[in-house]
């Protein structure tokens, strides 16, 4: 029954017309494009949802709640334009625009408007002597792209934020507008609600197999390549041995931390190393901790999202002197991503000392709770992978953002939609983020990774 209803739903669009008779509309806005996609193609997203956020699709059967391990809902929720790569800045600028107009993009008649609880408090990046030159050049690039960032000296920092100890800080960059943090869960629910109202079906399960067909072709230089096309995806239903084969025309891999595993299932990377066939998707899960503490004498309402030169960060949470924060561990200290257990020693050793040195009020604080989440860490250059795979022709990627996926998600979603509908990127040129760069060795290095 499920099989039949899925096929029925995927075969007809909302108004009951067949696939061929919808109006051609390259003049539609992004919302219209999304609805076109749903009417035009049967697409299967591992995870069962057409959301470009970090859905987890590869869940072990004991996790019945679909999003319990997804990076989106465990995220600290910040959005900033202070990157060094211009494409990242542009992605983030569109995403903040999307969030501001979210009730126009995602309006569903008769449902209450969305409140993503955006705090427009900005980001404050602190740099020591070593990093000051890099910070300054980054700010120049950001200003060129249209971000509103200003540079501050240690004296200005002390005047503006008296609770900061500017010792060791050579330069600071402060985002005045379009930066802050918001509630990722409401964004996720808003997207789900909207796409459900447009007729998308969600199914929950674990992707276990891709059934694809191969085609041999010859390149202009005479080499033989094997092009694959995915025809079916086997989705294993929770708590049972049954699986549902889902026929699809396009597969979009937005599986977050588990994208590497999904890509392997589809045959990406099966070949001799060094060739395009043998290039794996270098995305793996990395565990990151977030701690929530209370400090009664801490910074007030004006606190931005502060990122210290040492890599430790914190932000205000609510009105009750609570703060969220953490730090990315170095390569040698990477915790085991097997589970989401929190290491409290990490806070004592690595997070608290730099924060207490930067904000003296944090010398006395009390940790209230903590949790861990995954980064979909791109081991190649810590930037996203967007676009089709050259050999598995109907698989598109939207993953690998290494901790800044949430803030780029709406823009990446639009980019993938453009890629699927038009075959190229139309608004933001994300060709530096294509899969080919792993084979060609062209790194897109981002300096400001938290």
């Amino acid at each position: 029954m499920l099989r039949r209803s899925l096929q029925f739903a995927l075969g007809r669009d909302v108004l009951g017309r067949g696939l061929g008779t919808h109006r051609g509309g390259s003049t539609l806005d992004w919302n219209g494009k999304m609805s076109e996609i749903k009417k035009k193609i049967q697409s299967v997203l591992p995870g069962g949802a057409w959301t470009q956020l970090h859905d987890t699709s590869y869940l072990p059967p004991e996790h019945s709640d679909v999003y319990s391990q997804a990076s989106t809902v465990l995220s600290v929720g910040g959005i900033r334009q202070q990157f060094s790569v211009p494409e990242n800045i542009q992605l983030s600028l569109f995403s903040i625009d999307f969030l501001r107009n979210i009730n126009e993009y995602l309006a569903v008649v008769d449902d209450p408007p969305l409140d993503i609880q955006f705090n427009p408090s900005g980001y404050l990046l602190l740099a020591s002597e070593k990093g000051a030159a890099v910070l300054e050049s980054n700010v120049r690039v950001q200003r060129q792209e249209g971000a509103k960032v200003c540079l501050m000296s240690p004296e200005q920092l002390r005047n503006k934020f008296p609770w900061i100890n500017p010792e060791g800080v050579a330069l600071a960059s402060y985002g005045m507008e379009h930066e802050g943090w918001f509630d990722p869960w409401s964004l996720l629910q808003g997207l789900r609600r909207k796409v459900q109202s447009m007729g998308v079906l969600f199914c929950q399960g674990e992707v276990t197999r891709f059934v694809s067909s191969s085609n041999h072709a010859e390149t202009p230089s005479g080499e033989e390549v094997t092009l694959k096309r995915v025809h079916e995806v086997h989705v294993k239903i929770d708590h049972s041995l049954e699986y549902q084969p889902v026929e699809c025309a396009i597969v979009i891999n937005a599986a977050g931390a588990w994208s590497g595993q999904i890509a392997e299932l589809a045959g990406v990377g099966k070949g001799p190393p060094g060739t395009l066939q043998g290039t794996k998707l270098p995305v793996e899960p990395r565990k990151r901790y977030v701690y929530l503490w209370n400090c009664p004498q801490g910074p007030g309402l004006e606190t931005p999202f502060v990122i210290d030169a040492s890599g430790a960060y914190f932000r205000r949470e609510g009105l009750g002197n609570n703060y969220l924060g953490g730090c990315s561990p170095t390569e040698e200290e990477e915790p085991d991503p097997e589970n989401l257990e929190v290491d409290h020693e990490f806070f004592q050793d690595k997070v608290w000392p730099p924060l207490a040195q930067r904000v003296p009020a944090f010398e006395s604080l009390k940790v209230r709770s903590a949790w861990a989440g995954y980064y979909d860490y791109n081991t190649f250059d810590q930037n996203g992978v967007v676009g089709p795979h050259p050999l598995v022709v109907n698989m598109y990627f939207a993953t690998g953002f290494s901790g800044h996926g949430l803030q780029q998600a709406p823009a990446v979603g639009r980019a993938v939609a453009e890629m699927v509908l038009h075959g190229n990127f139309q608004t933001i040129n994300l060709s530096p983020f294509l899969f080919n760069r792993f084979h060609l060795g062209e790194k897109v290095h981002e300096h400001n990774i938290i």
Partner: protein
Amino acid sequence: MAAPRAPLHLMAPVWNQGTRGIHGLSKAVAPEDSQRKGRSLLQFLADHFYDVQALREYLLRKQVLKVHQKNRPFTHIKERFGPHAAGAYFILKQGGAVKFQGKEWIRPNTRGRFSLDFLKFPEVPVEAVDASGSAINYHGLDNLLALKELQSLWLRHCPHVDDWCLSRLHSLANSLQELSLAGCPRISERGLACLHHLQNLRRLDISDLPAVSNPGLTQILVEEMLPNCEVLGADWTQGLRLGPEEQSRDTASPIPA
């Protein structure tokens, strides 16, 4: 959920008048129970007929576009007469009032007409703006932010001014001394946090903000954030307005000195 539902929901059309009646009723404010009855009929029809649903979505879009149209920029006036005149024209068009430096308040009359004398003096800066009750939103604020010598800004009861708009006010930090946000339904304490850029602010009115979750605590935090500013909230009168069952719940909030 304090965000207003009115801008996104259509009022019940009167079906026995045919489709002509729908256009005129978008501004009507129906009483509660007939609104509920009308809306459930509408919902029923929208769920069962795709045409009705498409029509409702179209009318929803039109409402949104109307607000956008009101907030369009007047680039022609800006190029010809300068930013002060363009800002003043924009405000007067919305139904607000403008005061130039050294002159009296200019207000539109009941028909919405106003004198265009200020266009003769494009160099005179605007000192005070009263945009209370207007449909100004994030985009319309562009016209105001060009007024670099603005000292007083009143945005009382503006239904589209929200936290995002407050984050833009930092460009007026050098001159703004008085700001009133009373009664704006979309402003919350998150937007008030970005007012700390306005270091020259001396009077701030944040009373009657329904979306602020904890008005007493927010007032204290804003006062700490802006030490040179006199902050008006209405927390003690809010206590007086509470009903008997809510008063016992509210004894937990801080009692202002």
